[in-house]
């Protein structure tokens, strides 16, 4: 090499692949790391908990309103004498499953809509963005309730009803990233060297547009869990499964007499959603190139 070039300060800072760099950034965010550990524990408990703690959450196992810690029931029993700990463990499966799949669905719809709108622009963009705005101004909870009320309250339908109302933010973020990146020279260069539209959309632009989408997706899991809790609080839930929101909903009449029956699942939701938000924040800091130079 005859280049008489030197590596400037910035070159020394950026040495590795962007994603490795991001992970190192993420690791330095202590709150996000703690949240990630807590989330892993929750996930682990949701998957393996029922094997270790084989009490059926629907079975009436003890006297109603037995407070936490008494008679060997760590979190106590509800108004029918069902074990709350078992409800939390089984509920975690449902709540997290719905949270993940609804978030996945809204990311899928949002990225597709946003990518096509941002890449093709023109009338395609106009039409897609008007549709997005339509979904944005809908009263989301009401719309989900209508869907569940009309088509039944199976897990699938609840997931669908959450996914269908919450993709708009992803669509807008994806579109704005595509609008920005499609004008960059490397996209132009790739087009000039014969790449097809599909290749540009999926292989060239998408990897570069991912960071803000990943952050939004993480936050979406949290809000989907909350949304599901809201629906089941209102009784719009599959009666054959337990979820945290449903536990709160079914015990809500006894909130004054036996507060713990409502607070315990509430705390479960709170911790989970908080941790997801913290991880999302950590991802945001780690993936945001403007903050990375610090």
């Amino acid at each position, binding site marked *: 090499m005859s280049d008489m*070039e030197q590596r400037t*300060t910035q070159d020394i*800072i950026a040495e590795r*692949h962007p994603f490795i760099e991001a992970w190192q950034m993420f690791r330095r965010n202590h709150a996000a790391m703690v949240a990630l550990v807590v989330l892993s524990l929750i996930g682990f408990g949701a998957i393996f908990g029922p094997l270790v703690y084989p009490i059926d959450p629907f079975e009436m196992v003890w006297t109603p309103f037995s407070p936490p810690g008494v008679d060997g029931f760590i979190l106590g029993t509800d108004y029918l004498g069902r074990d709350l700990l078992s409800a939390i463990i089984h509920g975690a499966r449902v709540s997290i499953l719905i949270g993940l799949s609804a978030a996945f669905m809204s990311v899928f719809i949002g990225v597709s809509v946003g990518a096509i709108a941002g890449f093709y622009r023109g009338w395609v963009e106009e039409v897609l963005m008007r549709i997005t705005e339509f979904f944005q101004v809908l009263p989301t909870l009401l719309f989900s309730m209508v869907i569940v009320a009309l088509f039944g309250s199976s897990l699938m339908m609840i997931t669908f009803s959450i996914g269908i109302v919450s993709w708009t933010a992803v669509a807008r973020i994806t579109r704005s990233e595509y609008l920005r990146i499609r004008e960059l020279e490397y996209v*132009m260069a790739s087009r000039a060297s014969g790449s097809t539209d599909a290749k540009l959309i999926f292989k060239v632009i998408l990897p570069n547009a991912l960071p803000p989408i990943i952050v939004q997706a993480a936050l979406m899991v949290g809000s989907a869990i909350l949304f599901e809790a809201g629906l089941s609080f209102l009784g719009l839930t599959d009666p054959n499964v337990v979820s945290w929101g449903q536990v709160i909903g079914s015990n809500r009449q006894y909130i004054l007499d036996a507060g713990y029956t409502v607070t315990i699942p509430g705390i479960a939701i709170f911790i989970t959603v908080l941790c997801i938000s913290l991880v999302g924040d950590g991802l945001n800091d780690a993936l945001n190139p403007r903050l990375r130079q610090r």
Partner: protein
Amino acid sequence: MTKPIASFENLRVEFETKTGTVVGVEDVSFKIKAKETVCVVGESGSGKSVSSLSMLRLVEFGGGKLTGGTLKFTRKSGETLDITKADQSLMRTIRGNEIGMIFQEPMTALNPLFTVAQQLTEGLRTHKTLGKEAAAKRALELLYQVRIPEPERRLNQYPHELSGGMRQRVVIAMALACEPRLLIADEPTTALDVTIQAEILALIDRLKQETGTAVMFITHDMSVVAQMADRVVVMHRGKKVEEGTVEQIFENPKHDYTKSLLAAVPKLGEMKGKLLPEPMRLMGNENTKFKPLSGSDEPLLIVKNLTTRFAVKGGFLRRTLANVHAVEDVSFTLMKGKTLSLVGESGCGKSTVGRSLLRLVEPLSGQVSIDGQNIVTMSPPELRKARLNMQMVFQDPFASLNPQMLLKDQVADPMRNYNTHSGEALDKRVEMLFDRVKLPHSFLRRYPHELSGGQRQRVAIARALALNPKLIIADEAVSALDVSVQAQVLNLMLELQSELGLSFLFISHDMAVVERVSHDVGVMYLGRIVEFGPRSKIFENPQHAYTKALLKAVPIADPRQRRSENDLNFKPLASPIHSLHYEAVPSAYETISEGHFILTTDSGY
């Protein structure tokens, strides 16, 4: 002996990074006296900006630390202050008051939400505690001093209503508002067109004479140094390598780095009487092995009446309100094995021509034929095939490579798209291309951010070569690079041309580079070619008024050929935006001599 206004003594600045301490500036000493312009010159990363920011103690905001040396500054009261020991509250009374600063980018140095008057009076009212009216009066005076047209009207305008040159004048007026003892100008003309650059340089020089301030002028451009400096400080890798008067530095450089820096700078006019392009001079390899091609007279690319317009949309239904006539009735022919350059200032449509040829932007009308096929009327699959013959190298090597893709994949990408090679043959060819552009094979598995600008541009060239194209469109391909790197990349391009018989369409604003590398030149203004001809004719016998003005504005890297403000005569750039009913006049040309034409219809200049 008068006291110098500012003196740097053994300055050392360090930056803390994740990977350890990086020394930004080490052991730098020099002095700036009143009424003197000291140019600090060096390539990117040489620490020239860091030194100037240290003088303002702004370097700490960027994470730097002054870890050694002293910075002496003589205040208005006559006392000498050590800037390195001053606290930030004292610095606030000095910044903008006793030391003025002009930044590189006039578009972002002004706050878009405040009027010119508000921004100009802000400093006066805080530092000089002038009343509202007195400050306004002084602001007007300043605008007269920087010779902005219609100063009264400018006071109440917002930055977006001013052109780039006018904004930079406002920035200079702001820097001068409190009559600073020292003016620091950090690449003040790098973002400007050459005609505006010439005006701004002349302005700074005149103001220095009138007000007696000391000027610390930071630049990477040796031609600007030749025009501006009294003394020169050459910096390299955070160290001062040489210091001297401008004549000493240009005529008798001592240090090897200074010599190589000067060698790589092309001088406008030095190609007089030569027929063929010549490789750039580089220290160390005087005898370049290749001979530039004389080219053939067989046309490769014929462009006829090419017109590209962009719609300006607005209003409720986003109707088309007006058209930007980016390219208007442009015709030219590029011969096989030759380099044709399009030159002009920003906004003249030269890049749009390049993109229209590949139909990366859709031309409105005209014919573009390469090897007899008309590209403008092709269907998408035909176009995709035709692009096999034409590839492009873009301006910004930091933007033109995909940050998430390995370099070998980026170079292999075009071949995968067209299925020209696969498997082992593909890997072999990628390696061969890396050899061609003189990059080591260890770079195959790296990502773009691990490379320097020049190395990235080599990758971009390798990618353009992958499909064995006949034509490469180089859109400002070297303007973002440091001079020595620029010279290497240009030589690489010339070498590839002579070995592979490539044709180049070279789009550039840099007249000196164009003079060195082209066979034919087209000068563009407001979307039209105003003058076209063989390189020697355009540079030695320019006929169109705009070509003459443009050549006059280019700074020459020779301190004995300075231009004065009186030589310059520019009109503000007219707008290429016209209403929907505007009928563009077809371009008509007069032949001066064989192959040399000038536009006779209205060019807008």
